[in-house]
């Protein structure tokens, strides 16, 4: 990931940024948990990079991703595939995001990290842990003051995937 310039912001700016990023996580998680997958690409810039990668691959320097989107076209195509072409049992997912840390800000880009867990519930089955991982994010400040993701790297500890991961992380 390309790092934003190291922190040149004062403490108050960083606190404000963290609050904005936490709001962003809330909206992102709420949209995915509601199941409206076609809204998911809206959280990213047109040139965004999205990777869901096993921690094992990440640490061994191997680039293979569970999901990879480079540019808006690939986001839209994944959303379309999930909604219209993939076959899977109905399920609920629930994202939990915690320990949000802002690691840098250069005026237009903020880098941040957070832990996430995703719970998944299938028909006639108890809820299970689908993923435990860490977001490494790069947000781009928009002219209207809002944030969009220019990069999201989801590095998951739960290397052994139980059956499949249908929805984005």
């Amino acid at each position, binding site marked *: 990931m390309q790092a934003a310039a190291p922190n040149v912001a004062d403490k108050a700016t960083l606190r404000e940024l963290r609050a904005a990023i936490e709001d962003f996580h809330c909206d992102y998680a709420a949209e995915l948990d509601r199941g409206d997958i076609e809204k998911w690409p809206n959280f990213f810039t047109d040139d965004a990079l999205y990777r869901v990668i096993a921690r094992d691959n990440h640490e061994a320097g191997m680039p*293979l991703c569970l999901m990879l989107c480079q540019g808006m076209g690939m986001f839209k195509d994944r959303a379309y595939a999930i909604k*219209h072409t993939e076959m899977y049992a109905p399920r609920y997912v629930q994202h939990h995001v915690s320990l949000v840390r802002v690691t840098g800000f250069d005026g237009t880009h903020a880098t941040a990290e957070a832990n996430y867990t995703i719970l998944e519930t299938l028909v006639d089955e108890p809820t299970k842990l689908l993923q435990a991982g860490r977001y490494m994010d790069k947000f781009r400040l928009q002219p209207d003051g809002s944030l969009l993701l220019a990069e999201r790297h989801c590095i998951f500890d739960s290397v052994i995937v139980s059956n499949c991961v249908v929805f984005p992380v």
Partner: protein
Amino acid sequence: MTVQAIPQNAAPNHELPDLIWPEKSGDIPDWIYTDPRVYELEQKRIFQGATWNYVGLEVEIPKRGDFIRSYVGSVPVIVVRDLREQVRVFENRCAHRGAEFCKSYRGNSRSFVCPYHHWTYDLTGKLAGVPFRNGVDGKGGYPEDFNLSDHNLRSLNVTVLGGAIFASFSQDMPSLEDYLGPELYGEFTTIFSGRKLKMLGIHRNVLQGNWKLYQENLKDPYHATLLHTYLTTFGLFVAGNKTGIVADKDGRHSALLNAKPEGRPDNDASKAEIRSFKAAMQLADPSILEFNKEFDSPWTSSAITIWPNLILIRQLNILSLRMIVPQGPNEFMLVWTAFGYEDDSPELEQHRLRQNNIFGPGGFLGIDDNEALRFVQDGIKRSLPRHGVASLGKDVEPMDTVITDRAIRSMYKHYREVMGL
């Protein structure tokens, strides 16, 4: 120490007299997917028998002392490059008290030390030393007749072809070339030609189904045009494509071959049968399905099943292995390895990575198959016993239709011989 191989034409099975295979051709009994006795017998007669089992790639262990964890059937093994650069495979089980001593996916070491009592093995699997062999102050210690060489790690037979490593519990095996037969050897060496490989990464996946369902899935071209809406929608595979199926003489291994037509398949007559076809859809980023022809082959995809534990896929520019690790009758692990070649341009490597969105446990097709297999296992294990039906097509007819189960039937013909069922 070697395990006695079970010959190919094993004696009929008298331990399981209650299991009677149905008479009708193409009928498959439920109990092969659910009965724990069948599962145990498969471990002995198939995975520990006269089979070559894929365990890893040489590129995963390039240097002396490099090792990876792997499996032969349900048995954990270590694949290691010894000090003479030879590839060795041995059981991941200490000869002392049975500890599975290697718990890392990969690493580099000069020796293996079991953490429990520090029995130490060299990279060839030989027991090199045990602490306090002669006790302390003349007291304790192992008896006079204790020989280190009686307690080596159990070593497997190893063969390497074009960078792919196979192992067998049988010391009496034909060459991998003979094991595969000429057609499958050809498909295999199209990919593993000796050109240096580059690892792109691994998906580790547990599926809630019997391991044989996965072999069936890749011998079942019927489902590919029906379940995989992504394939049909975006023109990768439709029933009217130029296709073929090849198998070895024993019917164990097979390859489904397919040539993707140029452009979209809107004029394919077979689409009318396919409910999943979505005529109006275009990819927002069609570059993901671009095909850079890189092999001297008429086929754009080749789905190769190598009995008993390997699927090798070439789909457009995706090169991918799937190693099957049975974990009881109702579950198996699937280790997906994506790779390219060392001399790939950075653009081609990026393209392979983007295209790999199709496969894996988060892939456009991977999700379909993993879910479908689970549906099958759920149905079989929870409903009243009943035979499955695999009667599509004829056993003898030209090899150019996908509306056939012949590769599944030929696999079970071989399976019944080996299992005595």
